[in-house]
């Protein structure tokens, strides 16, 4: 089966748009998403099918001549500046807005460009044009009185201490514990999101500014009611991370770029205190804010969800090219980078596409780039697809290795032999063994193989917590 195979897009789109148009009369949500997708297709001019065609051709050519960056040529056309807001008139009002401000959960947002009463948000490639009282696609940025505020500041909806392997980050301070946090919101609409209960929510749906404020304390758990009133400002995050014995802070779960301002302020303070900052992200961010973030960011795991514009649109409501740009920028600024690729049956499991992706990674990011393949499981709205076969995951790993990548892992499939083991690229001996996201054996001296003294890519300083 070929998901990108030729179809008759105009007839299909016309039929679907017609049906969804009726649906939009009664329902919002996914319908609006589909409609918006259709609209963005139209707005992108020349239509999508030709773009996808060009992608395939250019990639094939590039594979034949590896010196050329693979996906440079097929860059998808940039969207017209300023997409209309997905949530017009949806900014918080009245008492809720006052209380939100009073709690300090609303801050003027960075990377915006005012144009009369409307404001162009320039944080992510969606570039929402926010009319007064409207909300961006990320659900966290609103236009109030001609100014854009982020509603995701000091109000995380999830706080946990996780092993760094859970992110996954395998080549950055193995066995370290990461103080992990998230607020509501995300720029994407991944149909298989495992965190949909926070990523596809407004901050107001996860937090409650009414009642008595609750202060964060290390080691204490909160009931849902208490947690909804809990404030954790950047200095609190740093204090909590230190209090729980963590040397790293992970901005994770939903999408850290949706709470960019909160993340940036926290990362700055954390850096000053010697803590490491980790971003677990879809990578959908424009270059200027990313460059500023890179000044404080130590490591990142970017979820490269597929290597096809078409799949990005179908499953994630996003675009591929900006993610590739993010990967390059992170690499260029020396941030430790690991890439994750979820293999979704019938969408991203074509071996030729995986081969192209690995080729691009080797060419652009280098053979030492860490790559994780993840097993898909039916979740959220993508429940009518089976889980990824173990053989597909093993084949993908083999392709990646053949393409020249030295550190390739498979997540969610413990039945695959050495799925999470790091091998020395020189002597081929296992140097880091993991099981269920836990480090179980380590045969390294610093950042070198204990057997042959070869240098292993990554950051391996002794990082036991506490």
């Amino acid at each position, binding site marked *: 089966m070929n998901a990108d195979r030729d179809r008759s897009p105009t007839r299909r789109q016309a039929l679907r748009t017609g049906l969804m148009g009726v649906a939009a009369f009664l329902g919002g949500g996914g319908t609006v998403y589909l409609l918006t997708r259709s609209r963005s297709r139209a707005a992108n001019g020349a239509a999508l099918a030709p773009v996808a065609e060009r992608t395939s051709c250019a990639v094939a050519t590039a594979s034949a001549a590896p010196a050329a960056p693979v996906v440079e040529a097929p860059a998808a056309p940039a969207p017209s500046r300023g997409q209309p807001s997905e949530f017009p008139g949806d900014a918080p009002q009245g008492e809720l807005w006052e209380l939100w401000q009073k709690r300090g959960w609303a801050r003027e947002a960075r990377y915006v460009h005012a144009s009369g009463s409307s404001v162009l948000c320039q944080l992510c490639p969606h570039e929402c044009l926010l009319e007064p009282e409207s909300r961006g696609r990320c659900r966290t940025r609103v236009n109030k009185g001609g100014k854009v505020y982020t509603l995701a500041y000091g109000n995380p909806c999830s706080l946990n201490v996780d092993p760094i392997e859970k992110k996954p980050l395998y080549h950055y301070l193995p066995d370290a514990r990461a103080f992990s946090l998230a607020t509501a919101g995300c720029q994407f609409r991944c149909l298989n999101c495992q965190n949909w209960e*926070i990523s596809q929510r407004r901050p107001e749906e996860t937090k409650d500014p009414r009642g008595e404020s609750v202060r964060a304390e290390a080691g204490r758990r909160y009931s849902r009611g208490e947690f909804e009133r809990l404030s954790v400002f950047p200095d609190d995050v740093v204090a909590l991370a230190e209090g729980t014995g963590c040397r790293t802070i992970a901005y994770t779960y939903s999408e850290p770029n949706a709470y960019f301002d909160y993340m940036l302020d926290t990362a700055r303070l954390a850096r000053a205190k010697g803590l490491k900052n980790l971003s677990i992200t879809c990578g959908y961010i424009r270059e200027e804010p990313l460059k500023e973030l890179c000044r404080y960011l130590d490591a990142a795991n970017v979820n490269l969800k597929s290597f096809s514009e078409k799949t990005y649109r179908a499953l994630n409501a996003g675009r591929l090219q900006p993610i590739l740009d993010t990967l390059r920028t992170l690499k260029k600024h020396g941030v430790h980078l690991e890439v994750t690729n979820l293999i979704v049956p019938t969408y991203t499991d074509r071996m030729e596409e995986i081969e192209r992706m690995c080729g691009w990674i080797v060419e652009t990011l280098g053979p030492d780039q860490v790559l994780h393949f993840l097993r898909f499981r039916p979740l959220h709205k993508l429940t009518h697809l089976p889980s990824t076969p173990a053989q597909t995951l093993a084949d993908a790993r083999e392709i990646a290795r053949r393409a020249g990548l030295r550190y390739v892992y498979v997540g969610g499939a413990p039945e695959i032999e050495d799925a999470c083991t790091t091998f020395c690229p020189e002597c081929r001996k296992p140097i880091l063994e993991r099981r269920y996201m836990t480090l179980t054996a380590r045969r390294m001296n610093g950042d070198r193989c204990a057997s042959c003294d070869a240098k292993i890519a990554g950051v391996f300083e002794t990082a036991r917590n506490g």
Partner: protein
Amino acid sequence: MPMDEPTVRRPMKPALFALGFSAVVTQLTLMRELLCVYSGNELVIGVVLGNWLLLTGLGAWGGRTSAGLRRFSGVLDIGLLALAVLPLATLIAVRTLRYRFFVRGATVEPTETVLSSLLILMPYCVLSGWLLTACCARTAESSDDARGLGSGYVWDCLGGLAGGLLFSFVLAPRCGHFAMLLLPAVLLTAWVAWTALREGRAGRFGAALFLLGALLSAFAYADPDEWTTAREFDGQTIVFRGYSPYGRLVVTERAGQRDFIQNGVPLFATGDPFPKKETAHLALLQRPEAKRVLLLGGGIAGTAAEILKYPIERLDYVELDPLLIDAARRSAGDAPEARVLSDPRLTIRLDDARRFVRETRERYDVLVVDLPDPSTAQLNRFHTREFFREAHAALAPGGVFSVALGHYENRMTPELEPLIAVPFRTLIEVFDCVSILPGAQRIHFLASDGPLTGDLEARAASRPELAFYPEYLRMWLTRERLEDLHLATSLDAPLNTDLNPRLYYLHLRRTLSQFQGRYGVLLGVLAVATTLFLLRARAAQVGLFAAGFAASALNVVVLLAFQTVHGALYRDLGWLTAAFMLGLAWGAARATRVARDPGPSMARHSAFLRVLLALGVFGALLPGALWLLARLELPFGAPLATCLFYPGLIVALAGLVGAAFPLAACIGCDDAAGAAARSFFADYAGSFLGALLASTILIPVLGVVQTCLLTGLLNLLAAGLIWSRRG
């Protein structure tokens, strides 16, 4: 209004019989098919059934235009031929066009479900409704006398009765969906061919014969099920496909992995033991020395293989659908999931799991429920206080009961919190000790009257053969995660019971929170449309609307109660529908005699009034009757009791509803077609609202008792209206 001569001569009753037959077989088959598309629960059944009734009602309303037709016999023949083809065309369209409109692999959203099912069903339902009114009007003694409309209604119901029986006892156990729809298609085309031959209409005779030949050839030389299934599962190789009385099963293959897909939803995959490990081991590690284990569902998916790694003496595995076992034997090859079937310690029991637990005399050391979340009322039966008591009785002293639902990722949400609190509260009513464990896949509830250990890590470490490593437990059963779940249990939560399925409602609420449909708008539109209808309708039509509402809402209640005790509604829906049709025909036949009585209209009024009052009383008494039935121990055994009493309730309900139609149709009647159109529309509109509201809002939110009382009250109000307009 004069009618053309051939129409007067042509007998309408066989046509109505064929219409009823086709409608019931098509409805039951397409409902099954659409459940695969929409991964259905009772909400989807309510929506699809509601749309079916609404569209048929609208078609019936339009049927009044048939009164002026001069060449009705030709229109009728064309209509019947179209009705023969439309169900098959709909089925092909459903399978092949799905991913033209919706994202491949994605759940169809609620608003899309409402609208797309409306579009899919529209051609067949509107046409059959139109023909129903048109044919029924022609069964009246004269065009300006509606007193005889009841006889047409009776023949339609008799056709439905035959369709339901044939579907349940002949078609469903043996045939696929295409073959099921072929039978009414052949019946309709043969009927048209025969009448055309009788009337000397060569053109129509030829057309009918050609269509009949084409249909039979298509099935003889091609396999539409095969190629439409291939289109439906584009990109996967089909290695097995089959139908059972419990659902449609397809096994696909991709990269060596066999995926078992039941009713459109992946059940499990071979070579993927990871999801089943925690289900088996979190329970068995509590009693690693267990001798007798009972497993409800999931055995073929790998749970049995994991349980059999312990030195147990006996594993009883209860599975509802024998096709699943058969498919695993035939298509899973050497996979461990299939190999385990030959283990001598394993006994497969093909039965409804709840009935098995209630009736077994064995006492088990561990009872593992490995069924999907309570996303349907059918599955909610395995999370109620009544079931927990039955499970408790089936355990040996100190035995462990295990059930799982939901998933805890890293944040407690307002939707998830009660999904933890309600089962905890319900379990603690029955067991002395309850433990909640947030696994990687699901949240597991362990319950026992004996001790439950928290030191699973050491036990897992001492059994490396399980490949259930301590690292896994350390990762997912952290102190923080356990505390989060514990905090959730402090919520003041209601009990989940058979008659008040709170967990089903809560699960539904969480599922719907993924989508952002404006359900309020939909309800608002319905409320306005209903109000307008009731304001403009005549009193008799309001009464018929109330009776139709009761027909659907109370029928849903009885069906859910039947399912709670007996299980497997999917299998039994055909003959239960036949029972409903029998009741309708019986009630309508008796009432038609009253309606035809040339006496004063007061007698018809009072008879209609009595029917509505009886429906009101029926609604009020139904919860008590169901409560008694669920507890009645009969000397001749529970199955016979369920076979007699639940259908008996349905026949009684349908008898009252069936009696309402002929009486209401002739109250204040003028022309037959107009009366038929108004009456059918009122009946179907009420049935539509009853099906939709009962299954989506009333039962999940209010519970069974309140739904019955509300429905009874509606009929009493309608009776009051009829009484006020007497004379």
